[in-house]
C-alpha cells in the first residue's frame, strides 16, 4: 500500500521540530490507513541521523547524502522529491510550512500536478462524495485550514491526484515519541541519478542563521496584543507585564502588520502556535486566524473594550475595559503580593 511520506528538514545535523511533529502526525495517520510511514532527509554528513527519526515510528528512511544538498536550495531538493515520488507513489506527503517547505512544496506539487494545501491546522482521514460525478472516495486526507483571513474554516481534499500534499507550521501538531526502540529501514537515494547538473545553479554566498530570540512555544505565560493595543508605545506596557510575570510577549497578525510588534512574536495560523499556562489577550478581537494558535492555552484572560469580541468565548476571565488602565493594576497587585 502507498505510504505516508514526510520531508524532514535538517539544520547542522539536527532534524527540525516541525519535521518531528509531522512524523508524529504522519505515524498516526499511517497506522489508521494501515500503511508505512517513510521519511526523507536530504543534506550532508547524515550518518546516524536515523536515530533522531526512528523513535517517531518511521518505517523507511530515505537519505540523500551529498555536500551539494546543504544548505538547502530549491532545485536539487525538488528534483529528488519529484523523482522519488514518481518511483514510490506515496498517497500523502507532508512538509513543514517553513521557509524551506513553502519554497519546496509548491514546486513539487506543480511538477507532479498534485494538490497542495498550505498551513493546515488539522489533518484527518475521511470519505468524500463527489456529487457532481456521483463518485465516492474513501480514506482521503482532509486538509483543514482557516481561510479568507480566518473568517472561515475550509476542508480541502485532493480526490484524484497523488500525493495529497500539505504543509503545517511548527508547533501546530504535537511532537511525541512513538516507540523509543522502533527500528526502520534506511534506503539510500542516488543523488546523481535523481538530479541534473543544472539543478545546482543557485549559489548561497552568505548565510546567517540564528536561534530565535523569542521562544513563545516554551513560555508558560504569554501576554499578547492585538490591533486594539493601538501603538508600538502601548505595547511597552505588555512587555512590562510579561517581564513582571516571567512571560513572553506575543501579537496577533493585525498588530504585526501595523508594525506594533516584530514578526517573530506573531501567534496564530501564520505565526506560532502556543499552549501556555496563561494567555492574556489584550486588544485582540479573536479571529480564528489568531485563536487557532492559542486555543489550547490552559487559561485565558481577555482584556478588551468590546464585550462582544470573539476572543471572549475562549476566555476564563473577560475584563471589559481599557488595557492602559487594567494592565497597570495587574502589575501593581502582582508586585505587591507575589513572593
Amino acid at each position, binding site marked *: 500500500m502507498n505510504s505516508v511520506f514526510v520531508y524532514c528538514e535538517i539544520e547542522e545535523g539536527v532534524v527540525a521540530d516541525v519535521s518531528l511533529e509531522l512524523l508524529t502526525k504522519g505515524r498516526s495517520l499511517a497506522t489508521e490507513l494501515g500503511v508505512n510511514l517513510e521519511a526523507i532527509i536530504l543534506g550532508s554528513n547524515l550518518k546516524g541521523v536515523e536515530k533522531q527519526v526512528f523513535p517517531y515510528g518511521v518505517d523507511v528512511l530515505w537519505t540523500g547524502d551529498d555536500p551539494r544538498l546543504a544548505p538547502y536550495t530549491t532545485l536539487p531538493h525538488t528534483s529528488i522529491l519529484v523523482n522519488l515520488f514518481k518511483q514510490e507513489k506515496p498517497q500523502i506527503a507532508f512538509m513543514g510550512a517553513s521557509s524551506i517547505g513553502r519554497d519546496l512544496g509548491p514546486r513539487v506539487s506543480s511538477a507532479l500536478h498534485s494538490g497542495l494545501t498550505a498551513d493546515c491546522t488539522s489533518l484527518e482521514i475521511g470519505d468524500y462524495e463527489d456529487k457532481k460525478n456521483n463518485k465516492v472516495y474513501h480514506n482521503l486526507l482532509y486538509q483543514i485550514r482557516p481561510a479568507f483571513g480566518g473568517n472561515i474554516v475550509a476542508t480541502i481534499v485532493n480526490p484524484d491526484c497523488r500525493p495529497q500534499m500539505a504543509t503545517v507550521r511548527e508547533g501546530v501538531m504535537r511532537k511525541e515519541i512513538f516507540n523509543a526502540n522502533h527500528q526502520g529501514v534506511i534506503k539510500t537515494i542516488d543523488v546523481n541519478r535523481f538530479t541534473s547538473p543544472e539543478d545546482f*545553479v*543557485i549559489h548561497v554566498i552568505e548565510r546567517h542563521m540564528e536561534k530565535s530570540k523569542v521562544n513563545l512555544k516554551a513560555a508558560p505565560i504569554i501576554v499578547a496584543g492585538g490591533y486594539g493595543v493601538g501603538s508600538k508605545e502601548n505595547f511597552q506596557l505588555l512587555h512590562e507585564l510579561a517581564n513582571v510575570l516571567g512571560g513572553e510577549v506575543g501579537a496577533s497578525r493585525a498588530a504585526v502588520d501595523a508594525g506594533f510588534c516584530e514578526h517573530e512574536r506573531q501567534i496564530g495560523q501564520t505565526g506560532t502556535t502556543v499552549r501556555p499556562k496563561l494567555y492574556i489577550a489584550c486588544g485582540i478581537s479573536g479571529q480564528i486566524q489568531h485563536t487557532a494558535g492559542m486555543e489550547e492555552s490552559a487559561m485565558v484572560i481577555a482584556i478588551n473594550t468590546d464585550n462582544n469580541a470573539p476572543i471572549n468565548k475562549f476566555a476564563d476571565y473577560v475584563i471589559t475595559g481599557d488595557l492602559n488602565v487594567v494592565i497597570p493594576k495587574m502589575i501593581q497587585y502582582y508586585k505587591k503580593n507575589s513572593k
Partner: protein
Amino acid sequence: MKGLKIVVLAKQVPDTRNVGKDAMKADGTVNRAALPAIFNPEDLNALEQALRLKDKIEGTTVHILTMGPGRAAEIIREAMFRGADGGYLLSDRAFAGSDTLATSYALACALKNLKTDLLICGRQAIDGDTAQVGPQVAEKLGIPQVTYAEDILKCTEQKITVKRRLERGIEVVECPVPCVVTVNGSAAPCRPRNARFVMKYKYARATQELQDADEDYTNLLNEHPYLKITEWSVNNITCEPQELGLSGSPTKVKNIENVVFQAKEAKILEPTDEAIDAMMKELIVNHTIG
C-alpha cells in the same frame, strides 16, 4: 547593460485584514461586497523592487500581469501611477474556480506571450496566504526561483543577487536569470503615486472597462495607445483548456464552515481595582502565576 524586461505578478484581493462585522452573511458565506478590493500588500513590495531596478538600469521596463475580473485593471492602473509602464489583464470565465495550480498554469501560459528577463511577485496574497503561485509559475516555466526576498542587491544580464529573509536568519543567493523572485512584506514599502503618472495614466482602461465608452473616449485611446491596458482572454494564450479553472484544480473544497466558537463560562469583570485584585489573587493561589 541593456534594460531588463520585468513582469510583476500581482493580485487584487479583498482586504481581509479589515474585516468588519458585516463581512459574513447570515448563511455563513463571505460577503465580498463588504470588503474593499486592494492591491495585495506584498505585491506592492514586489513592485517597488522592480521599480528600483528600473531606476538603476536604463531601458528597463516594468509591466504588471494580473488574473482576475475586469475591475482588477484597477491595480494595473495603480501600478502605472507609481511608475510601471503598463500591464496585462488576464480575464476569462474559464479561469473561475482555479486553485493555485490552475492559476499558475494560466499565468505561465500568458507569460509565454511575453519575453521576460525577470519575474517578481509578492510572497503570498492575503486572501489565501498560500505562497504557492510564485514557485508554481517558476516550475511551469522551467526557471529557478528565489523566495522570501527582502532586497534585490544586484541584477545583471546573467544573474541576480538577492538577500532573503528566512524565519531564522538571512541568506544571500545568486541565481541565474530569468527567474522568479517572490518578495516578503519586510522588504522596502512601495513608493507612493507620482502626480505626473497619475495625470498621464488616469484614463488608462482595459477592454472590459470600455464597454460603455463613448466616441470621445475611444478617440482618446486611439490617439494615446499607452492608455490601452492589454486584455487577454483564454483565446489569447496557448493552453490546454482542461488544465484551467475548476477542472485544472486538483484540490477541491469539501466544505466550508463559518467559525462558531463554543463559549466557555467566563467570569466577566469590570476594570475596577477590587475586581482585578481578586482575579490576580485567584491566579496566584492556583499557581497560574507566581
